[in-house]
């Protein structure tokens, strides 16, 4: 038998290496080695991010226009288009650092007035009645004349004291029973899931009523966890991080593709669970909360994220007719899904509506309270996917408009997520075309986040830096515009002013990506409303959720044609509503039950097969929109600017 030939690949910097078969895909080899490499297209050669440099050895690579000839000569290739043909030394260019913490609607934000409107304001009316509760009970002693089992007497006492009939006691609790009951003379503290009638834990004596829970949002891009005191609803601490699945594909579709590969599903499940474990560990360390006191976990996430978290194949979400395996996953112990540290806590998940309208949206709707109101509202979640729901207490209709990750920094060269050192606000001087920027956390900027990108496009359009198609006007004497042949960049921040010595700019390709994203969002809104014979002028409130940044300049979002041209007072920017909904559900059984009701209440519309949606999408590939009639106030602004 012939020996299977293998080639050795060394990666620099660092000292990692891997042996692979001839013709093996280089990007796959990099991933196999556990090295993070950007690739928003999932490895099909269209995003140009997985570029590496071949220092020694030979690869067979498909020609691509994404690498300039001069760099090709120096050995740069797209790893996804390259096959290994010899032993190699491969240089991995420094990836953009994304270690910084996601700026979330953190504690301070929640305490701020606007947020209070939906969380704390609501909170006052939330009757705190969590699923899981600790209770002190006394169990009857056995005797020769009363020789029933420990378990029987425990259940009897629970029924008499807590009104829960025939509660389920899992084996791990039964194992603790004999000692726990006798240690403090038949006095015990039980942790019990009231809704399901399940005994979660038993401890000897009176341990106090300390009881905590976790509200978790698993987003395509980020993870966030609230540690909550279940007695009073206080948020003790918040931790967040990137979803580590990003390196396997930036959007949902690429994750699903990866999950379909051999071992892919398990890998994706593993990395997200690991990351959640790390965050929980940090919360425990910082808060000094006892692991035994964390009793319940509430999870919200889009359908794909939930499938991956529970280790269920999301494959059919992507294939026509696009169905989920389940819209709601059953509750289980944390240990069963791989959560460490707090294995016995119970996990609940929020019910989704459909493949592309998941529990994160249901949760968001709960947070806004729009399902309780007569007035017509629109809920818009500008996450990696872009979902929208319109309706009121009587009816709701929802859709997903696959806007892509542009507003979370994906597909935009200098785009980053809303992290420290991200540019969140931009204004352009009409005379000099110089940019004024504001940076999250102060200091020097590293890139631009969603809210900054919306500002950039809006300002560039209003100040005449770009035309309505998003092409630079080259003859206006803009000295911050640098062109090489067809490739133009508008320099927003000089390299001296940035954190890493590189200039921060926006190119026509970036603008294209952002215009496509905003076109999908507006087309979604318009099409969905028309399905129910309404117009944007019928809307009384528009709630906007998503990790675009801390502040969103609604006016600029209207100027670029992403949001309908209606009274700015009707808009409410809420940040991450998915985790807020999970938080409310964690505290209140009633709220949790409402999420299922909301999910069943929403009628899902598939836009991907809707011709009108496509038509409006193309009309939206223009600033603000092909038909100016939709944006009268923008026309007026331009007219006034022209007059000056």
């Amino acid at each position: 038998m012939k020996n299977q030939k293998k080639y050795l690949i060394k990666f620099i910097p660092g000292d990692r290496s891997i042996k692979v078969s001839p013709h093996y895909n280089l990007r796959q080899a990099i991933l196999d080695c556990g090295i993070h490499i950007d690739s928003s297209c999932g490895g099909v050669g269209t995003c140009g991010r997985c570029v590496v440099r071949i220092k020694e050895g030979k690869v067979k690579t498909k020609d691509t226009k994404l690498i300039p000839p001069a760099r090709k000569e120096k050995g740069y290739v797209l790893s996804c288009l390259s096959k290994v043909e010899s032993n190699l030394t491969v240089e991995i260019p420094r990836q953009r650092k994304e270690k910084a913490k996601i700026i979330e609607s953190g504690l301070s934000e929640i305490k701020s007035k606007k947020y209070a409107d939906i969380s704390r304001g609501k909170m006052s009316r939330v009757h705190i009645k969590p699923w899981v509760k600790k209770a002190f009970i006394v169990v009857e002693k056995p005797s020769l004349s009363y020789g029933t089992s420990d378990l029987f007497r425990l259940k009897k006492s629970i029924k008499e004291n807590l009104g829960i009939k025939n509660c389920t006691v899992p084996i791990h609790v039964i194992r603790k029973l004999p000692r726990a009951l006798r240690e403090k003379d038949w006095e015990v503290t039980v942790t019990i899931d009231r809704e399901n009638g399940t005994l979660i834990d038993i401890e000897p004596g009176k341990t106090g009523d300390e009881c905590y829970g976790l509200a978790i949002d698993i987003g395509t891009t980020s993870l966030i966890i609230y540690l909550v005191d279940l007695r009073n609803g206080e948020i003790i601490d918040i931790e967040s991080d990137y979803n580590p699945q990003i390196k396997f594909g930036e959007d949902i579709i690429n994750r699903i593709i990866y999950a379909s590969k051999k071992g892919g599903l398990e890998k994706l499940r593993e990395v997200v669970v690991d990351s959640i474990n790390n965050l929980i560990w940090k919360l425990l360390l910082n808060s000094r909360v006892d692991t035994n006191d964390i009793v319940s976990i509430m999870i919200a996430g889009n359908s794909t994220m939930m499938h991956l978290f529970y280790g269920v194949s999301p494959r059919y979400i992507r294939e026509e007719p696009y169905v989920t395996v389940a819209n709601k996953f059953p509750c289980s112990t944390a240990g069963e899904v791989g959560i460490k540290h707090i294995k016995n806590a119970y996990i609940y998940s929020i019910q989704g509506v459909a493949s592309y309208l998941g529990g994160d949206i249901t949760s968001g709707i709960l947070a806004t309270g729009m399902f309780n109101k007569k007035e017509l509202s629109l809920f818009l979640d500008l996450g990696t996917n872009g979902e929208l729901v319109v309706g009121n207490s009587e009816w709701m209709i929802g859709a997903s408009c696959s806007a892509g990750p542009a507003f979370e920094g994906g597909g935009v060269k200098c785009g980053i997520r809303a992290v420290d050192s991200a540019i969140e606000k931009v204004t352009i001087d009409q005379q000099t075309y110089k940019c004024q920027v504001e940076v999250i956390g102060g200091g020097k900027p590293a890139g631009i986040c969603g809210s900054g990108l919306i500002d950039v496009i809006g300002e560039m359009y209003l100040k005449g830096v770009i035309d309505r198609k998003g092409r630079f006007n080259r003859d206006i004497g803009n000295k911050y515009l640098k062109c090489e042949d067809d490739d133009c960049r508008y320099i927003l921040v000089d390299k001296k002013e940035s954190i890493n010595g590189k200039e921060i700019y926006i190119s026509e390709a970036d603008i294209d990506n952002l215009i496509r994203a905003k076109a999908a969002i507006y087309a979604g809104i318009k099409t969905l409303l028309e399905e129910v014979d309404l117009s944007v002028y019928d809307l009384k409130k528009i709630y906007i959720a998503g990790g675009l940044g801390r502040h969103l300049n609604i006016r600029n979002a209207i100027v670029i044609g992403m949001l309908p041209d209606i009274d700015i007072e009707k808009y409410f920017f809420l940040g991450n509503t998915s985790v807020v909904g999970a938080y409310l559900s964690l505290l209140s059984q009633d709220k949790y039950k409402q999420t299922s009701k909301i999910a069943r209440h929403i009628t899902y519309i598939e836009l991907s097969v809707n011709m009108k949606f496509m038509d409006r999408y193309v009309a939206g590939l223009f600033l603000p929109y092909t038909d100016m009639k939709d944006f009268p106030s923008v026309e007026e602004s331009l007219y006034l600017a022209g007059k000056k």
Partner: protein
Amino acid sequence: MDFQIPKNTYTGSINVVRLGKDNTEILIGGERALPFYGFEGELPNKPVVAIEVYDKKPDNWPEIIRKYYDDVFDDPVRWAKKSIDEYGADVICLKLTRIDPESDDISPEEAADITVKVRESITRPLIVYGAGPMEKIADVMKKVSEKNAGSNILMGWVEEDNYKTIAAAAIGYNNNVIALNPLDVNIAKQINILLTQLGLPADRIVMDPSTSGVGYGIEYCYSAMERLKIAALMQDDKMTQMPIITNIAPEVWKIKEVRESEEAYPEWGSHEERAINWETISCMSMLLAGANILVMRHPKAVSLIKDAIKDLM
């Protein structure tokens, strides 16, 4: 009771574009009703036929079309004259292929000189198309517009991503521009908006919504044109009121059924008859969809189409 033909009312009209000047001038567009609906509104200017003239002998034309132009292939001036005098072209559509770096790579100057020579020796208006990379076409059209200043020639073509140079040349030297779009009403409007915002008067724009021959997706072209005309006439949408040109000859003449000989496919019958029918029916469909200018190739097809226009108007 007598039967009354139900009539639509129209709120908009198609722009009138002037091609050529003085004795060569013709008007296109101006209709106030859907194509050939003369009973509903005025149709002041009938659709016109342009015949293709190349600056170089085409190397892939089948014999059945070559034979009509064999004696003029080496001279675009004579080719243009023959197309007008013998085949009845209303307009000449000159296609500059030698500018392509992969062909003769002739300079913008030289190309512009050819267009001037042709224009000065004919009594019909001139359309000029460039073939090659967009940057070269733009350079050439700049010169072409300059050297034909004020002659109201129609220059092809501009796209959304590449309109500024040619449009500026048209504005500077008073010529007209063809705005190409990929079978899409929204994109058609977007180009027209961009062009007018640059300062090009709306009545200097002719739209080309892209086209194809019968059997190769012509239904799609038909409905795109129909939507443009309906938006222009019934919704008075200013950015769709440009007349339409369909550059259909190259599309028809690359189709297998038009190119293959009778020897290769005896069951398809006479090659020439088949080709003429194919071009005629394709053009007829485009006329019914609202084409104002048809760019054609086969003299017999031209004659059939011109007869049909006469009958219908």
